[in-house]
């Protein structure tokens, strides 16, 4: 189906252009390397677009065969981060390549989705029904959880709580989508939630603070609560029509930290207001809806699960990031797909969208 290719391409292009505009507006007054940051984002967008087109031509069934390799490479990179990763903003999340920094956790999200889609779409030999419906608790929950938990643990230890929890959320929702019994899923959730008070002690100080600040940003307005307060001010000051492009004082005068990465939604919303933000939200919704439509009309269970997984990953990231911008979710380091500055995120999102388009295309070939 060519139409889904173009629909997703156009939506992605609009979103990433808005992202470049926002990045430019939040950095054009700053000095030094900041000046060129929007150009780098354009470069990443172009590379991402290339990946999108190439991946959309390659048959996604190849991922079925390569899934252990992909999973292994993702784990390898995550280990590498521990050894060689560069430390930025107090976290060890990046690998230095020739001229850019690579964030393996972004890649790991996609790898885990591919792995889980493959795992849950195995068929029994005698009939062609899915195995997952007959899974017991070990094969249905514990085994796949171990496969998720290893990269999740590595990511949380970086520390990157947001991406780690993202994996968990995608895992739980994929479990729900496959026919694994509900009582197993509830057991898993209970097992995960009950020891939470115990895990509190394992959280880093800044993570504890962020959670406390989420409950009440005003307990530390100049420290941990600062970002949320400033981000809420930025979004709220936009009003109905926004302050206009390049007129956002919050983002341009440094009041809003991370205004071009995690808090780019606040930057955007300050300048384009309620109407602009609604437009952006509806773009995201359309892309995600497109993903769900593709998933629904795919007969191949691997392709269907993969499409669901990718759509869910997008939806959850968009939701958590924007909710965090508005102070409705605790501050965790999650980028807004296609908007936030960052090569890894852009690249991985485009690859994921490419896979999505390819699933649709391959379906029509069958």
């Amino acid at each position: 189906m060519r139409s889904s290719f173009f629909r997703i391409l156009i939506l992605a292009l609009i979103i990433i252009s808005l992202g470049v505009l926002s990045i430019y507006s939040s950095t054009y007054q700053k000095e030094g390397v900041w000046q060129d940051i929007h150009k780098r984002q354009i470069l990443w967008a172009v590379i991402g677009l290339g990946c999108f087109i190439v991946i959309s031509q390659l048959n996604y069934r190849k991922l079925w065969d390569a899934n252990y390799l992909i999973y292994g490479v993702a784990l390898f990179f995550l280990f590498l981060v521990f050894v060689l990763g560069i430390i930025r903003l107090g976290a060890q999340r990046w690998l230095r390549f020739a001229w850019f920094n690579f964030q393996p956790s972004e890649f790991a999200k996609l790898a885990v989705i591919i792995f889980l889609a493959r795992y849950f779409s195995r068929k029994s030999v005698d009939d062609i029904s899915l195995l997952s419906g007959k899974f017991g608790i070990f094969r249905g929950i514990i085994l796949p959880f171990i496969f998720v938990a290893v990269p999740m643990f590595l990511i949380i230890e970086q520390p990157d709580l947001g991406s780690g929890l993202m994996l968990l959320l995608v895992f739980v929702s994929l479990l729900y989508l496959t026919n694994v019994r509900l009582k197993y899923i509830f057991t898993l959730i209970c097992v995960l939630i009950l020891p939470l008070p115990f895990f509190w002690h394992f959280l880093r100080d800044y993570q504890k603070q962020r959670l406390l600040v989420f409950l009440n940003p005003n307990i530390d307005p100049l420290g941990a609560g600062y970002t949320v307060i400033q981000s809420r001010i930025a979004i709220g000051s936009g009003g109905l029509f926004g302050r206009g492009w390049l007129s956002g004082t919050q983002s341009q005068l440094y009041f809003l930290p991370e205004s071009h990465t995690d808090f780019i939604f606040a930057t955007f919303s300050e300048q384009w207001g309620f109407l602009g933000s609604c437009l952006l939200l509806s773009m995201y919704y359309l892309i995600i809806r497109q993903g769900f439509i593709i998933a629904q009309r795919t007969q191949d269970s691997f392709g269907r699960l993969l499409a669901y997984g990718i759509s869910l990953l997008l939806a959850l990231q968009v939701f958590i990031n924007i909710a965090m911008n508005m102070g409705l979710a605790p501050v965790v380091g999650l980028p807004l797909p296609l908007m936030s500055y960052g090569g890894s995120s852009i690249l991985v999102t485009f690859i994921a969208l490419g896979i999505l388009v390819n699933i649709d295309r391959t379906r029509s070939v069958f």
Partner: protein
Amino acid sequence: MERKNILKILIVLMFVCLFIGLANLDLLQGAKFRGLSDSNCIRLISQSGARGNILDRNGEVIVDSKISYDVMILPQEMDQLDRVLAGISRILGVEVKSLKVVFRRNYFSSSLPVTVASNIDLKKAIQLGEYKLEEPSIIVQPNPLRHYPYGTLAAHVIGYLNEIDRWRLTKLEDYGYKTKDIVGFGGVEERYDYYLRQEEGGLSVEVNHRGKFMRVLGFESPQNGKDIQLTLDLKIQKIAEENLSGRKGSIVVMDPQSGEVLAMANYPNFNPAVFVNKRTRLIAGLFNNPESPLINRAISSSYPPASVFKIVVAAAALELKKINLSTNFLCRGSTMVGARKFSCWDVHGLQDIVAALAHSCDIFFYKTGLLLGAQNIHDYALKLGLGRSIGFELPYETSGFIPSPLWRKINKFQNWFDGDTANLSIGQGDCLVTPLQAANLVSVFANGGYLTTPYIVKSVGGLELSARKKKMSRLPFKKSTFEIIRRGLREVVSDSKGTGNALSGVDVAVAGKTGTAQVSRGATHAWFVGFFPYDKPKYAICVFLEHGGPGHSASVVAKQVIEAMIKQGLVEVQK
């Protein structure tokens, strides 16, 4: 329901949730956040204009404003602050440490500029202005301060400046006054504060998250207050104050033809500059001083007029035909009114109206007063401008008081006796007059029968007020009444036994009347009211000395004032 549909609904719910959150922030709380955003990055730096000057009738400055410079900086991060303060200390020659102490003391909030040094001179201000090119967060703020080149001169007419008090604020809030505003207290500064006061202007600047100056958003230039020109003549005012010095009392000189007040001197006085410099101890001293130096005695206190009041009694008696030029009363030193003995201060023998005025014979006026009756005296006093406020421009004017039988009955539940009438006839008893009223009274006889309304403000912001002020009313008295009393007033000075004979040696013909007011405690008050030159009066004068002894001493002061005025060429020499 299928699991995938539930999941789809969940996704839709997530977006609805975001939409509601967005609507809440943008639409419901948008205005609040817009304000917060502005206060994040916009700083207002106010600049005040200069208060209007106060000038004398010839345009000479009595009070103006001198510009002093304050150094302010925008609050910012510590390391930057150190650098800026180091630069300032290099230019001012003050230690960084002490600048920091001042900074910390004056720091109020991160959104307000902080004063680190005040009252620096022009040269250093220019140097700092140049340094500002490197460090735009420095603000050199011109700060006009009230400047009193003559110190205490005309202090009561001008008034002083101070921070607005609660009472005034509640009254003036609607006119744009704010807490901590500097407003006038007393005198022209208070009454014309609305015209004199400057309008604040200022800069609005944008700063970044570190308080670093980014750019100027807007500028509104401050407006200076309007100048006020008084009718005071600086030369006469100086003469009056010099001759009063050291003696408690008041001198008023006015133009009897128009009612312009040319001089209004009071003692004890005060230096308004102490309020500008915030010399707390001196200010407290002024308020606690039992001599009340802040009171404008010429209009705010009233005293028994004593023999000055005889002018009123004479005018009333002549008008009502109770006496005429040929009426004579014999003064034997005392007379009986009812069962009480009323005495004169001397034995004058046979007196007619002119002689009685000249010698200030009490017996003559007791008898005239008894012929008139208290009510008539009261009515004529009011016609001549006593016992009611003049409507003078300066605040806190008192109306004085003229008693009447009816008032006595209503307020004191007592009857009026002939003795009271006799007392009133020589201006004693409950009768009270301000020095300005006394000067206004004598002006009527100087200008031939016009009751003027004294005024002291000539123009406000270049707009003449005298035209709309002139409310001179011709008193419906007979011409002969004025002539007879004028003659009597001249005799006071020219007669060798006249009470104002001290003034006869002056090179100009003076007419006037002395007064010696008995007070319950302490020495008598001394009065002299008069006008000169006699033929064509240009000046009316009232000298009042609180506990200054007999009327003679007031006439001596008047003589010194007139002689000094002659010396300065203000009065034409006739002889």
